[in-house]
């Protein structure tokens, strides 16, 4: 039957696709601390982001800016060597206010993703 052939082809393709060895994909932001859009009572010493894929350190960046656009991170973001899905950004001592995070991630298979979010210190 033609339907059986079509569905069979789909099943074979799905099996090959889902079983493709060592495939990687776009690194999506899974969660962050401070969380996306959250308010935290005290200034965090660092921002940590967890991604859905391992990151390529050479091409992965993140910056944190205040409402005036001034950088408030203390240096380049660091991919955690023990867990390459984790990205750390050390922060200066943050006064109350709203801060914007901009990240650019390259997963190890070279797909890029970008994102922006804010968090607020001290109720903003």
């Amino acid at each position, binding site marked *: 039957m033609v339907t059986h052939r079509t569905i069979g082809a789909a099943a074979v393709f799905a099996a090959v696709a889902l079983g493709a060895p060592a495939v990687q994909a776009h690194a999506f932001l899974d969660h962050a601390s401070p969380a996306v859009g959250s308010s935290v009572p005290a200034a965090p010493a660092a921002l940590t982001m967890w991604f859905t894929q391992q990151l390529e350190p050479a091409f992965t960046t993140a910056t944190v800016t205040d409402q005036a656009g001034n950088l408030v991170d203390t240096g380049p973001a660091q991919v955690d060597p023990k867990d390459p899905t984790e990205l750390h950004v050390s922060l200066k001592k943050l006064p109350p206010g709203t801060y914007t995070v901009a990240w650019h991630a390259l997963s190890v298979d*070279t797909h890029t993703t970008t994102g922006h979010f804010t968090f607020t210190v001290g109720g903003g």
Partner: protein
Amino acid sequence: MHRVICRGIAAAAVAAFLPGAEAMAHGFAGDRFFPATILTDDPFVADEASLPTISLNPTQSDGSRELDVGSDLSMLITPSWDFTLSDQWAHLRAPGMPATTGFGALTTGTQYQLFINPEHEAMALAALDVTWGNTGNVQNLGAPAFTTLSPTFDFGKGFGDLPNSLPWLRPFALTGNIALDVPTQTETMGVKNPDDVFYGFAIEYSIPYLQEEVRDVGLGPPFNRMIPLVEFALTSPFNRGYSGTTTGTVQPGVIWAGQYFQVGAEAIIPTNSLSGHGIGGVIQLHFYLDDLFPNSIGRPISQW
């Protein structure tokens, strides 16, 4: 300083030795990911495959009902240009008649990405589809004896650039397309073949965008990758005696978009009696070939 230089060298090495470094991604415009919609065309070129798309259409006015099993393939020729191929197998059951089965017409196409604007999460493409005559084996299942040309314009716009005072609206996105269907024969065996205009829209609300860009509301799998949407599509013949016979469907549903594939399901609701009655449904399994096979069939044939 030393660290910066080392990073630069590492970056150059990655760019030089990893194939397709900073690869073109399917459906991204800046921070926005557009899923592949089921009813309406996508506004981006990509290496992707829908296999299968299974539709049980609403009952037609003559009491007949059709089940379709379709497949679509899109392959990049260059990062901005692709070709497409689609066909479907259909099973038609009409009251008092034996069931009819067979393939519909083969459709091929080519698409060119006109622009992608990351800042405003906007993109558009131009396409030309050709539905080839005499390529299906059952004429009453949509396999005509004539070829139809369909120039198409597709667009997508995310609303992430709305002001921060409207945070809950920023996950919305709109995609749409408008096409002109021009049969190469104006009449076949005494039956007029009208030109028609096809227009469709999809309104999407991206839970991934909500949680990654606006507010982490704590939704976990599978809800954190879901994109509820409503699709609309209408076909309006406008000449050769068929004016005023617009047909169409409204299709509310949801798409779950994973790392390598997505799954979508929608209800099919006819817009008027000419389009049928009752409710149908469609499900689709869709693969991101660029993520599954980044070093082979998931890459453009040429980087030109």
